[in-house]
């Protein structure tokens, strides 16, 4: 029996088309896995399936409600497990006085359905992460959800806890719940899924029974067939080592790409280098961390390079105008607030700030995420130029074509460690993805 049927789902965010005509369904008593690279559109699809987001076009039919269990549980830490469950089940619609005895009885029942042995009186903040996940599952069961979506549930679980989760999923499946399972760990997919759908660039490129697909095929489907041809080595002679962390060395005049899945620890590595004072950092979330929106372009550009006691306004204007021209920052004026700029131009401002300090090493975390094609090309040009001038550059990117196009060498990170380093021209997209996902067990 089909519990959830989505047809022709299309969803755009501004100019970015996150989903293009995706079909997906969940069937009672079946585990349907959803796989794809970072940014393939998995999260957007889940939100559309649960109803958290409305699709631009397409149709979602649900038999019974749909609930999602996320990698990071969202419980009220200061409330007890009973209260957390009650809030989800009652949704604030309690008539008259609270019947604590009934609440607790219901909580115990839901927890046992979820296979959890947790005292319902404990505060949610005292629960371990796997326990919190179990409470999330109990919550979902309490809303009589017939379809349960698991989004990277094992990302922070030990093997033991993951095995327990799989038993619970098998239990739910046996009782006729429809399961949608998202994971980067392909071995898990082969362990528990009955069917798999591959998303790539917002499109569903394959839907197969799990028995009819191999691991190699899945990786191929995720990466795409038109794997960009690796460019030959640049023939540059690298200089002295400027940056070093966890066995990864970045030399003067060299661009090193750092590939890895979301959560592989790349941003943590970038922050470590910054905190040690070894590199300037253009952070990933530019609105939160990169630029100061309430300050002007000129003020942002000079923020890190202010040395003199007195502000030198003519020099500040000149410096800002220089970088505006050099990086092609599109703004009405260098005295406009950064809040008014587009994402790509904000990123250029963040970049300009560090260039003004002439650092020896620069770390860029997802420098072109959410940036339009034109700005992206300009940012790439600047990165190459800087390396040409002798800066050591580390580029973190979830876009493998970007990593392949920019890097002299490519490092792959998995679960906090550098697991492989490849020279330019010695790896293609397929091989990198394989390394990011981990060896087949």
């Amino acid at each position: 029996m089909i519990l959830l049927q989505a047809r022709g789902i299309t969803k755009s965010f501004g100019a970015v088309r996150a989903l293009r005509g995706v079909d997906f369904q969940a069937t009672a008593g079946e585990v349907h896995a959803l796989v794809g690279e970072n940014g393939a559109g998995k999260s957007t699809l889940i939100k559309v399936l649960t109803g958290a987001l409305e699709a631009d076009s397409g149709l979602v039919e649900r038999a019974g409600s749909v609930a999602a269990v996320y990698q990071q549980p969202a419980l009220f830490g200061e409330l007890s497990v009973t209260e957390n469950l009650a809030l989800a089940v009652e949704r604030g619609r309690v008539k008259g006085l609270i019947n604590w005895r009934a609440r607790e009885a219901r909580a115990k029942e839901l927890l046992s359905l979820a296979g959890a042995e947790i005292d319902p009186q404990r505060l949610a903040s005292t629960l371990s992460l796997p326990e919190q996940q179990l409470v999330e599952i109990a919550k979902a069961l309490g809303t009589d959800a017939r379809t349960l979506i698991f989004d990277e549930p094992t990302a922070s679980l030990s093997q033991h806890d993951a095995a327990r989760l799989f038993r619970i999923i098998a239990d739910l499946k046996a009782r006729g719940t429809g399961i949608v399972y998202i994971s980067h760990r392909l071995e898990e997919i082969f362990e528990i899924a009955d069917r798999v759908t591959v998303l790539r660039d917002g499109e569903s490129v394959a839907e197969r029974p799990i028995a009819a697909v191999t691991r190699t095929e899945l990786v191929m489907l995720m990466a795409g067939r038109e794997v960009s041809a690796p460019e030959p080595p640049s023939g540059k002679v690298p200089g002295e080592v400027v940056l070093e962390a966890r066995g990864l060395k970045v030399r003067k005049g060299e661009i090193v790409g750092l590939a890895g899945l979301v959560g592989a620890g790349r941003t943590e590595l970038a922050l470590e280098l910054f905190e040690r004072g070894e590199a300037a950092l253009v952070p990933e979330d530019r609105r939160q961390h990169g630029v100061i929106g309430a300050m002007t372009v000129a003020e942002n550009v000079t923020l890190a390079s202010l040395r003199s006691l007195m502000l030198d306004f003519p020099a500040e204007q000149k410096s800002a105008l220089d970088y505006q021209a050099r990086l092609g920052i599109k703004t009405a004026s260098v005295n406009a607030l950064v809040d008014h700029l587009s994402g790509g131009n904000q990123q250029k401002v963040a970049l300009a700030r560090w260039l003004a300090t002439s650092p020896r090493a620069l770390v860029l975390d997802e420098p072109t995420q959410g940036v339009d094609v034109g700005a992206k090309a300009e940012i790439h040009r600047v990165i190459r130029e800087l390396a040409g001038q002798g800066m050591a550059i580390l580029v973190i990117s979830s876009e493998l074509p970007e990593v392949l196009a920019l890097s002299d060498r490519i490092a792959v990170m998995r679960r906090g460690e550098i697991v492989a380093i490849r020279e330019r021209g010695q790896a293609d997209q397929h091989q990198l993805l394989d390394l990011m996902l981990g060896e087949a067990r």
Partner: protein
Amino acid sequence: MKAAGWAVLALAAVLAVGAPGFFTAANLRDLALNNVATLITAAGLLLVILLGEIDISVGSQFAVCGLVIGVAPWAAPVAGMALGLANGALCGGLRLPSIVVSLAAMVALRDAIRWTTQGAWITLPAGFQWAGLGQDAGQWLVLGFAVLIVALLGWALANVGLLRNIYAVGANAEAAHLAGLPVAAVRIGTFAALGAMVGMAAWLNALRFNEVQPSAGTGLELKAIAAVVVGGASIRGGRGTMAGTVTGVVLLGMIGAALTFLGVSAYWEKAIQGAIILAAVVLDRWGGRDAR
């Protein structure tokens, strides 16, 4: 800030028609003298509010500095800076919430004064009043000094690189940290600067008298916060100007006196001040933003 400016002009227009007696030199001078402490405190508090923090212990700091004047007048700003440094270390260094830290400081300092003085007034050193210049010259000295300090701080806020860091930290502390700014030092230094300003306020205010009372500065924090907010600074930090804060002090200072001149019951003063503060916050939320 623009709104406060228009309100000052509107109030002045009403007074010009309804109570021209308001605009005598003597009345304006007395009004200004009565607001010297609020003005300097508000100027210092603007820095802390720009940081996205708050310090409600300024009234108690003011009283402590008053006592210090009884011992050594020059030490008042130093004592204020020390108190500010303590708040700064707790808020900026340990990242404790400034509302709680300064609430504790407000209560603790006030009770410490009560215990030390047993409620007795402190007699100031002979020749301290009006700096020995007599009332006329002394009044101008106090006013001139107050204007100078505030103008200097306002100028520095716009022109000194270190002070721009306050805006950056207040607008987005995480981004400021990742831009390599010493965020903790900026916070601690700003609280210390406020303390020094409060010490200066206490010193200038004390010049008008030959005694200091232990209850001095009660309610000063509310007046100063109100003036900064009415002057268009965002209570969330990152936005506000010295000109705005000065306008806020002028507006709130004028209201009370204006009501007396216009024959409105003084009981309305607080209600009207409250309404103005609310209006300022509403304008801040929905009105146009000043450039800074």
